């Protein structure tokens, strides 16, 4: 029993200790060899990130907007696709399923380099929408698969009942389907948002350096080994993701509660 306990905490330490080190680096004013703990304390790196004149904060906001657009678009195309697979039998269903899961296997590097020239030809390269479109691809397998599970679990009986009782198609969507799939939407949306917000390579390739996301801004700091700045930027990165996930859950949770209060 003791051994189990020890192994568990060794793994947990391995996962969390590096993050602790990063927090230490982000708030130190000097941490020279061979000290094991930070020597001075300062918030200078954070004030650089949050000060309006440096423009970092603006990049952060723009980046969040981009990833929110990506998430909304991905979910929007995933919902009907998941419904079609869950509730209909049609020719080529297995091919469709494979096609949708394929982005998990074929790296985005291959896809982005291949499609780059087309994007240049149609004027999508180096634009906001070009980056959005390429970010949607890796999210599709997660969006469709998670929503497919939700639809298969719930079935479409409740929706049929609502229709029989005289609800219009729009009412069914608003009062039945949406509340039913909300938990799935939150999970899928979170994964898609995190994946999009973290993309470095494909943003850099398709955005051509013109579209600067926060992940792209962070990269050179890590590359040059600037531990203090890179750590502070990273912590803001992680906090911003946590904040967005938290707010989404709260807002959607409220909506969910309100709609289900009357109808369930």
């Amino acid at each position, binding site marked *: 029993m003791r051994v189990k306990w020890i192994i*568990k905490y060794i793994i947990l330490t391995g*996962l969390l200790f590096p993050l602790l080190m990063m927090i230490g680096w982000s708030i130190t004013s000097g941490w020279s060899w061979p000290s094991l703990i930070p020597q001075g304390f300062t918030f200078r790196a954070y004030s650089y990130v949050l000060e309006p004149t440096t423009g970092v904060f603006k990049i952060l906001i723009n980046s969040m907007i981009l990833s929110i657009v990506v998430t909304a678009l991905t979910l929007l195309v995933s919902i009907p696709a998941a419904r079609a697979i869950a509730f209909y039998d049609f020719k080529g269903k297995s091919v469709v399923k494979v096609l949708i899961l394929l982005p998990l296997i074929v*790296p985005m590097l291959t896809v982005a380099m291949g499609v780059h020239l087309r994007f240049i030809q149609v004027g999508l390269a180096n634009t906001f929408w070009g980056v959005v479109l390429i970010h949607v691809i890796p999210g599709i397998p997660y969006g469709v698969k998670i929503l497919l599970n939700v639809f298969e679990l719930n079935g479409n009986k409740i929706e049929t009942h609502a229709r029989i009782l005289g609800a219009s198609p729009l009412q069914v969507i608003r009062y039945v389907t949406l509340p039913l799939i909300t938990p799935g939407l939150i999970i899928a949306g979170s994964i898609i948002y995190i994946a999009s917000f973290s993309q470095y390579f494909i943003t850099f390739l398709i955005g051509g350096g013109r579209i600067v996301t926060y992940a792209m801004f*962070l990269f050179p700091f890590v*590359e040059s080994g600037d531990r203090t700045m890179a750590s502070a930027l990273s912590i803001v*990165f992680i906090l911003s993701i946590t904040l967005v996930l938290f707010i989404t859950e709260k807002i959607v949770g409220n909506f969910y509660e309100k709609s289900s209060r009357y109808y369930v």
Partner: protein
Amino acid sequence: MRKKIKPYIMLIPVMVFILGIFIVGIVSGLLQSFGYFPAIGLKTLTLQYYKDVLSSPSFIRALRFSFSTSFISSLVAVVLGVLFSYLLLYDRRRKGGPLVNIYKVPIIVPHTIAALLIFILFTQSGWVARLMYHLGFIEDMKYFKPLIFDRQGLGVIMAYVWKGLPFITLVTFDILRSVENKYAKTAANLGANHFQVFWYILLPLILPTVASGFIIIFAFSFGAFEIPYLLGPSTPKALPILSYIHYNSVNLADRPYAMVINMCIALCGFITVGLYVLTFQFIKKYNNQ
């Protein structure tokens, strides 16, 4: 009739992305890898680029480096991830314990930051080197054998394990719990010990999930740019980096070389999935007999 067409209509939006961007990207890359690149006047199909790439020593070294780092890191992540999942299972009596959620933090941390964490810990002036110094193992940082930028790719492996382990735990934990509820107690009742319960009951039942988790992290690490770029050695280079160097070359005629490498990366993913499917078909047949 309407009923027949409806699912296809519902699939149109997703297919616009899958066929219009994803497949177009792969097919354009494939054509370019065979030397069909009308934008710079190359219009004849040839296998020359494949011959050139496959016979170049730098490609072979890169393939070996990418394969070994991806395979080792995915394997370690899967073994430790399942083990951790199993250990967490017996933790649930203390409900709401922080353990159950706090291990998920690395999942929301991007690969760039994972690389930074490994850098902070394992560089020559990093924390581990300092610890070694205080414990008296080394006299100065220059004696610390760097674990990053090394030829074996230890830093790359550590970063991928750090990212992959909690992912595997996340995907196996729920299924492990439901399987455990159903069968483990029965087995234990019949006299199986902890190891037997795990090895003969739990593991076979969660194996499909574990295997698909392995494929996802393996295929990802095989084709990802960030971590080998930030933590890998300058030689051998990982495949994605080698590909990008060809792609970014001033000479556009070098692009087919990048596409050949990209196709090899994609092919390795397909081979892994093929092995997965074959293995499970084999197991099914074997069990039915």
